[in-house]
């Protein structure tokens, strides 16, 4: 397990190195108004929402599910809190707005969990419902406008600094919390067990329904927090574009981190690395000046390269070691 994480790490290091070569100042850090400022910090800050959503997604995927609705849920969270805050600049309003938003997200997660565990609908379709309708709901809340707010407390969530960006601190906190909860309680094991063999788990007395509800609620709340970050970062709620396609980035981060879409064993550290790799890739594109029309080709090549580096079979093929067929 530990061993496997070396390769995503290598990939991340290689990407960062590429930046360093092209822009020597990339690693430079300076303190400005009590906050760290520099290329690496940007990677962390902008990667925070993806990381957060990917964390929720990791657990969902571990149960053999998938959640396509996270982007829409993120948009709803941003919309609800910004509309609630409106023109107010009070921290209280901001917190009330955020609390409302997260509560709503938890409900949406319950809804997803109900469709998957209660109705037995395939996760990809069950969450597609909210993926489609959710953006509509977000737009309904904002009436299709971009709602701009000017609230200093709210701004902290996505753009604030306590030495490091608040956003990444929140994400790392959630990461720590999930790691603690899943590894210190039995949740992690039960999630994996449901993901690997649902029927055997049922016969062993595992409450798979409850577990599935839990992970979808968690994923939705993560998406909600990420949505708050995204909207706070630009002090506006954009129902249409906030978190657009972020579910794909999140799934990609999870998968790059070594968790299989077939469910079962998952790695939170892997997801962290995956999210950082994806964000670094995006930042790299901007920094090294890849032309927009080449961007996608560049991304494709990097993604494949990253995966090839990690794939045991690819390495085995290179070093001519024997390959055992799984049985």
């Amino acid at each position: 397990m530990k061993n496997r994480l070396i390769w995503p790490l290598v990939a991340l290091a290689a990407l960062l190195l590429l930046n360093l070569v092209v822009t020597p100042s990339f690693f430079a850090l300076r303190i400005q108004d009590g906050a760290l400022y520099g290329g690496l910090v940007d990677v962390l800050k902008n990667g925070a929402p993806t990381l957060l959503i990917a964390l929720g997604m990791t657990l969902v995927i571990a149960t053999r599910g998938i959640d396509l609705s996270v982007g829409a849920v993120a948009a709803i969270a941003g919309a609800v809190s910004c509309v609630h805050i409106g023109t107010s600049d009070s921290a209280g309003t901001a917190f009330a707005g955020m609390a409302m938003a997260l509560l709503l997200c938890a409900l949406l997660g319950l809804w997803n969990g109900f469709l998957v565990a209660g109705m037995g609908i395939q996760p990809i379709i069950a969450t597609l419902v909210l993926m489609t309708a959710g953006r509509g709901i977000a737009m309904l809340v904002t009436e299709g406008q971009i709602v701009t707010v000017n609230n200093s407390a709210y701004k902290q969530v996505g753009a604030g600094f306590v030495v490091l960006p608040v956003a990444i601190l929140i994400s790392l906190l959630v990461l720590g919390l999930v790691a603690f909860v899943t590894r210190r309680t039995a949740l992690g094991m039960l999630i994996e067990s449901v993901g690997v063999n649902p029927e055997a788990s049922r016969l062993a007395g595992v409450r798979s329904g409850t577990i599935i509800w839990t992970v979808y609620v968690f994923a939705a709340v993560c998406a909600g927090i990420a949505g708050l970050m995204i909207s706070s970062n630009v002090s506006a709620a954009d129902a249409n574009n906030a978190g657009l396609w972020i579910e794909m980035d999140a799934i990609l981060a999870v998968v790059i981190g070594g968790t299989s879409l077939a469910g079962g064993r998952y790695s939170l550290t892997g997801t962290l690395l995956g999210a950082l790799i994806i964000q670094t890739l995006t930042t790299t594109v901007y920094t090294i000046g890849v032309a927009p029309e080449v961007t996608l080709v560049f991304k494709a090549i990097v993604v494949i390269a990253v995966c090839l580096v990690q794939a045991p079979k690819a390495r085995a093929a290179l070093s001519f070691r024997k390959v055992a067929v799984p049985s």
Partner: protein
Amino acid sequence: GGGTAPSNGGGTITMGFAQVGAESGWRTANTKSIQDEAKAAGIDLKFSDAQQKQENQIKAIRSYIQQKVSVIAFSPVVETGWDTVLLEAKRANIPVILTDRSIDSDDTSLYKTFLGSDFVEEGRKAGDWLVANASGPTTVVELQGTTGAAPANDRKKGFEEKIAAKPDIKVVASQTGDFTRSGGKQVMEAFLKSQPKIDVVYAHNDDMGLGAIEAIKAAGKVPGKDIKIITVDAVKDGMTALANGEINFIVECNPLLGKQLMDLAKKVVAGEDVPARVVTEEGTFTQEQAKTALPQRQY
């Protein structure tokens, strides 16, 4: 309630309008203007949202033909690819009005008229202002719209056309910010680190410009002074920033086409002659103009 579609013979006009989507505040304002004006003009409006997909627009138009509306209007996302379905409309004797953008077809009989702005011209206006206002060597970074999207292509084209006249002005970096604020902010953050000197930001819409402002502020610089900003659209948030001195120049792209569209529709249905091209009235705003215009801004 399920609306029914009276055919051309009836007194009321039914218009089928195939909107691109609701991807931006600009578009929402555009939609609202059309809906409001249709009501005011007593036109029965069939509205559909194509969710940014051309094929959905085509499907909607086809269903309007099926429903025998009296006139079809739509904002084509792309210039190309309309011949087949417009030919069907023509065969069904339903007149077509284009809004917002023209189409690329050799057969001009496919539509009656085109009402809308010219994205290339908008780019040119932005370029003109910069050429007039730049002194000495100027480095520009460009925040492009969605890669491949028509407004992005054209606003880039028009801008480049004009600044070519002045070799001092150089676009040193150009990247897509997907027309969104967070895109604009992220790209700008990266530019601020990788470019040693930035004098001007040219953003293909207000939202990316507003994102860039946030990035510039976070980097400890003053938007509008240390780095000048030019954007396109003139939505309310953009105009506010312009009035506050954070943006230096905005090229207007007017979404309020509703009234003109309804007038045209009535004429077209009545069989009157209409000009093949109706350009919307669009201006440009400097900081001073913005201060006076802002109070009456509707969107």
